[in-house]
């Protein structure tokens, strides 16, 4: 029923015609264009769409637009009234409370309501107030700090407004300067002026005002809505897909099925050994519940939904298998009937290898195998004083990025395809999409947008992205496909559950002499990253301890479960959980302190790994030692306790790549110097919350001796920025950062040449610092802008542009072999050690994470505020995976595909966070920087499991460590 309503939003009345069933969220976003109110789940569970209704926070997705009449509605766009930022908006920037920014508008509004009612809240008040706002990036640590800081400032100032225009660029620089001044006390003393400083993010202002644009916010004229029909069966042959009824529905613009794209095949792993096994839409079979069958483009969402219900599909149900060990048995149903032929990515780029069939593995449904043998394992075990064998199991977890996956595609008549994608590497997606669509790579333009959290879950090219492009080509109109939260949980990617059998032999002093690992990863219905994760589980583990005799066999296995893919530290949490849980048990067996056993085996700077990687920087031992010292390990470990609440501590360590060689194999960057002294940095990196836009700008500013405020960044766009590896395997800081540094250095050399001529001093005597270029005394020289103008004038108008590029392993063409783990992996490893302190309620079995102490060796913290934020996010995700997150599957069906039922950590359970950086200064990295974004999730699992053992003597070898499991184990112990 259509009706006129009047809504009072941010102080203005709006008269609108709406349907009775439209929610306030629909109307704010679609009708009023107020896209700062974010759609996260659409079912009132995540808080991303929080708005204030008569001053109280509510989820706009559960308010009927018509029911909001007569209420005062405040959205994030209405908070900076008259262009003046609210103190919360400033504090969120100052304190690093903003990362991906997708939860930010909702959290800020919730916090505003709190401060309006309670101007002096306690920390517990804040945590309770924001308990309905999920955040995946920050672990709530800096959000809580920022809200408390804003409250304090408002009470102190008496005035609630800080002067600053929210929207125009010049004054945004003023705002940043204010923020920076407030941070001056945080400034670390270091030799650098811009890097190493906790500067507020460049994207902070856009994100705290709701102006940052994500894919879902893209509006194009005439845009159709796409929806996908999915299989309700875990394994079935498609007998018939009949679209004739759906085609007749008015408003339906195009329908595609597997028949239309039967020849299209792609996959993340597409090598001679492992050829691509995914189609955009099912051709002959469906292999999991959620497998794509058909896609519809229609004039609106309601029509697209209805069209799906009119597609008639006939299935022949096939036997299915959901347990990877059963799937490996000879009589198990075969999920992929035939080997696929051919490979694309690697051959085109010159990495020819003999195709190898996977049929030789001797097990059924094997999608990949990694075998590594070092030394002589039998001899090693013969030398051991003590041998332990344990079996560990890890669960399926979800990425939980607050932004649901979304694609907008617009096919131009010229044949050019414009896309806006939730991605982590625009060049990787461009390449795969172009190949799949049969377009020249350069005909696909991936546009820049902010990404609302990714954590590995937005790397792959997904069927919905292909379908949006295909349907746009069919209709000649833009097409948008936004996944529902349930689709995100079920049909994007999940973390691989693993079964890990671990046999370790040690000497009496804890020195490891031999280790044998058998690992099975369930990759679900398609290969996904199966062969990658079993390789990485080895590759992220081998840099931790020296193991002279080692045998590793990893299998990735097809089942009829949802597809598994990369998730933060891809493979490391699982293997590190097993390794350091067992090491703790070994230390107990031997009566040793586990810290001693870790240090006895830990690798050091200068070590050469079995594949040839050299640890040119390695702060592992320092991380362990400092985490132990800071956490109070010695006083807290092994306390005799009798009360109901018992505390314990546990420790674990982890390591992570800093980039690796894969398509497009290198990163490039460019800078353009403007005659007013500002610069534009062009980089293909993505901003998904990790702070790349800001840290890359800091690197460029440092190199050129200018300020962060002088740098504007063009990022994440395949036409406006040069090629980039993308943001996975944690190459951002080292690889892209190095390219940016070299680009800035290139431009600086050009300026120095000119300045050197003008000042008549040799270029090597020149310094660029404080927006000046000078020789010795800053007064003798000129401003950066003067130098740029001089260069342009003296060189006939030639602009000053710098170019830089960097390849992760410039001295080798040997790409790592997934099957043998040979060849170089990465230029440098980041390290972390983590101590968890838990409190176990022996009555209820509940585990409270009290404190986490993390020391991360990121080489050099380019921006300590951002580095801390990365650690906080890792700690929180690790906490979730250790204690409460679990994708519940029965017969291949996900039972908790929602933020209500899948338990991401909430504000109330955040531990005290103690964190520190170990600056090992990686020689290859820009200013010594390397990985920080992924590693420190992986130490959390064993640290918590070991802490629980320390507290109550209960050892859990499967995750998550839920209350009921502890009660059961306690009962079993009590006999």
């Amino acid at each position: 029923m259509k009706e006129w309503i009047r809504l009072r939003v941010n102080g203005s009345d709006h008269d609108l015609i709406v349907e009775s069933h439209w929610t306030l969220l629909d109307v704010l976003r679609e009708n009023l264009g107020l896209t700062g109110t974010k759609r996260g789940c659409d079912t009132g569970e995540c808080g991303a769409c929080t708005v204030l209704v008569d001053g109280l926070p509510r989820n706009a997705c559960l308010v009927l637009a018509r029911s909001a009449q007569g209420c005062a509605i405040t959205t994030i766009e209405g908070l900076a009234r008259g262009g003046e930022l609210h103190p919360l908006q400033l504090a969120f920037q100052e304190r690093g409370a903003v990362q991906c920014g997708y939860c930010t508008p909702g959290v800020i509004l919730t916090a505003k309501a709190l401060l309006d009612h309670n101007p002096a809240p306690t920390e517990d008040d804040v945590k309770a107030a924001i308990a309905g706002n999920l955040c995946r990036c920050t672990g709530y640590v800096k959000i809580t700090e920022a809200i408390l800081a804003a409250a304090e400032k408002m009470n102190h100032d008496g005035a609630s407004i800080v002067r600053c225009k929210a929207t125009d660029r010049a004054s945004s620089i003023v705002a940043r300067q204010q923020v920076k001044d407030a941070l001056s006390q945080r400034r670390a003393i270091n030799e650098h002026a811009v890097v190493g400083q906790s500067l507020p993010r460049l994207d902070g202002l856009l994100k705290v005002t709701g102006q940052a644009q994500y894919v879902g916010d893209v509006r194009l004229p005439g845009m159709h809505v796409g929806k996908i029909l999915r299989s309700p069966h875990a394994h079935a042959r498609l007998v018939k897909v009949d679209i004739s009824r759906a085609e007749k529905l008015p408003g339906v613009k195009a329908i595609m099925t597997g028949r239309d794209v039967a020849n299209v095949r792609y996959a993340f792993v597409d090598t001679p050994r492992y050829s691509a096994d995914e189609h955009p839409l099912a051709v002959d079979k469906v292999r999991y519940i959620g497998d794509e069958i058909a896609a519809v483009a229609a004039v609106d969402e309601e029509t697209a939904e209805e069209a799906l219900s009119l597609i008639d599909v006939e299935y022949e149900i096939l036997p299915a298998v959901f347990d990877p060990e059963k799937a490996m048995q000879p009589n198990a149903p075969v999920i992929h009937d035939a080997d696929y032929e051919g490979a694309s990515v690697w051959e085109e780029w010159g990495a020819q290898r003999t195709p190898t069939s996977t049929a030789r593995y001797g097990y059924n449904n094997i999608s990949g195998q990694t075998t590594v043998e070092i030394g002589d394992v039998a001899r090693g075990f013969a030398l051991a004083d003590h041998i332990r064998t344990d079996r560990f199991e890890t669960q399926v977890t979800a990425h939980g990025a607050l932004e649901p996956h979304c694609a907008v595609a617009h096919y131009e008549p010229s044949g050019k395809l414009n896309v806006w994608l939730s991605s982590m590497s625009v060049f990787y997606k461009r390449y795969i999409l172009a190949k799949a669509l049969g377009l020249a790579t350069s005909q696909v333009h991936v546009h820049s947008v902010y990404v609302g959290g990714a954590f590995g879950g937005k790397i792959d090219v997904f069927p919905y992205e292909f379908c949006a492009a295909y349907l746009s080509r069919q209709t000649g109109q833009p097409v948008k496909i936004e996944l529902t939260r349930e689709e995100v949980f079920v049909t994007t990617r999940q973390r691989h559950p693993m079964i890990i059998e671990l046999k370790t032999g040690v000497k009496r002093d804890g020195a490891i002499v031999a280790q044998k690992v058998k690992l099975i990863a369930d990759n679900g219905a398609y290969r996904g990253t199966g062969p990658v994760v079993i390789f990485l589980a080895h590759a992220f583990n081998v840099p931790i301890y020296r193991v002279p005799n080692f045998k590793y066999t990893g299998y990735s296995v097809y089942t009829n479960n949802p597809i598994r893919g990369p998730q933060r530290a891809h493979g490391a949490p699982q293997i590190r959980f097993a390794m350091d849980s067992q090491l703790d048990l070994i230390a107990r067996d031997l009566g040793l302190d586990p810290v001693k056993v870790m240090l006895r085996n830990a690798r050091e700077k200068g070590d050469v790994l079995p594949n040839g990687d050299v640890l040119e920087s390695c702060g592992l031992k320092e991380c362990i030692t400092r985490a132990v010292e800071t956490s109070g390990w010695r006083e807290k470990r092994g306390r005799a306790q009798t009360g109901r609440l018992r505390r314990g501590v546990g420790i674990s360590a982890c390591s992570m790549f800093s980039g690796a060689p894969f398509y497009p194999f290198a990163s490039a960057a460019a800078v353009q110097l403007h005659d007013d002294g500002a610069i534009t940095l062009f980089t293909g990196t993505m901003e998904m919350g990790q702070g790349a836009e800001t840290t890359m700008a800091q690197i460029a500013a440092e190199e050129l001796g200018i300020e962060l405020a002088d740098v504007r960044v063009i990022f994440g766009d395949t036409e406006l920025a040069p090629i980039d590896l993308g943001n996975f395997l944690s190459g951002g800081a080292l690889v892209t950062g190095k390219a940016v540094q070299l680009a800035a250095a290139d431009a600086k050399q050009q300026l120095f040449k000119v300045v050197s001529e003008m000042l008549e001093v040799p270029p090597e005597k020149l310094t660029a610092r404080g927006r000046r270029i000078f020789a010795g005394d800053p007064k003798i020289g000129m401003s950066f802008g003067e130098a740029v103008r001089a260069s342009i004038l003296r060189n006939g108008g030639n602009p000053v542009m710098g170019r830089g590029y960097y390849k992760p392993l410039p001295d080798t063409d040997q790409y790592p072999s997934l099957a043998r783990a040979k060849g170089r992996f990465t230029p440098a490893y980041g390290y972390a050690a983590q101590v968890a302190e838990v409190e176990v309620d022996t009555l209820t079995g509940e585990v409270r994470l009290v404190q986490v102490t993390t020391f991360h060796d990121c080489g050099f913290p380019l921006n300590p505020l951002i580095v801390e934020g990365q650690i906080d996010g890792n700690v929180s995700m690790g906490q979730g995976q250790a204690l409460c997150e679990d994708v519940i599957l029965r017969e291949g069906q996900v039972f908790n595909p929602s933020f209500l039922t899948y338990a991401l950590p909430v504000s109330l359970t955040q531990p005290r966070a103690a964190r520190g950086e170990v600056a090992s200064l990686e020689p290859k990295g820009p200013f010594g920087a390397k990985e920080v974004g992924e590693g420190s999730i992986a130490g959390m699992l064993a640290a918590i499991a070991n802490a629980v053992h320390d507290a109550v003597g209960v050892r859990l070898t499967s995750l998550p460590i839920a209350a009921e499991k502890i009660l059961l184990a306690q009962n079993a112990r009590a006999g």
Partner: protein
Amino acid sequence: MRLPRFDCFDPRTVEEACARLDAHAHEAKICAGGTDLLVRLKQRLDAPRALVNLGAVNALRDIQFDAETGLRIGALTTLRAIADSPPVRAHYPMLAQAARAAASPQIRNQATLGGNLCLEKRCWFFNQSQSWRQARAACLRAGGAQCWAIQSADVCHALVVADTVPALIALRAQVVITSSRGARTLPLDQLYAGLGNATTRLAPNEILTEIRVPAPLPNSHGVYLRYSTRPAIDFALVQVAALLIREEPDGVCREARLVVGALAPTPVEAQQAAAILNGQRFTHDVVAAAADAAVKEVKIVPHIFLEPAAKRRLARAFLAEALQQVMRDT
């Protein structure tokens, strides 16, 4: 995710609302806060032609307290208003705890007490999206022939999990139910239909309009606790409401009321456990015996990721904790 199409009526009085329901009873749904209903509609669990939106019935929004007659709460009072209400906090802290335990601050700002009491029973096999449910044959509640939660069952085993229910049953609350034919009053525990598809015994043309709680008893003390994976957002996996009335000055228990929720289709009052406590002074042994007895009185419905035995262990632990809290607090 769009809602299905429906018409909407906005009565301003209870009488108007009743008239609307009389006209549209079998094709209309009552919408109070809407936090549960709108999710159900998005999941296509209901497809009403129309909503009778009670948002404009302002008469149902106040809380009145009288030391003689007790508490009267209009059905549209939000959970937040109840949790923050001074008389509720002073005289019925258990109810404030229960109201504060539900969902999230955003939901509590919108969800109403009447809506919470009428919250449809939940099941892991039923409260899912339309496309999710297509992966299985329809369950009993969805018009099919099978209960997925208990596959041998021939009747729906979904659970009442609203947080305020066990607390209000322990407080002996009554609900006022209004239709165009007048009002009737029902003890809250009798509102629920038990096994089967229906959550409550409300007729389609009836509205729950008011909640009445008797005057607080001297020397009574109540505690509401719940177990859930997280302390916010989640529905409870175990609920415990314990109310004890004791003699002064010796502290002997005169009357105990123990209500456990989220284990069986409707909350269960553990009467044998209460009998163990009655006439006793509290010791750890008495508490343990009562907690053991209470969980034995409940036939626990299996949960998707918790075995009945695990739920029983948790329920026992939370009962013991609730009783110990009462001991500590008095």
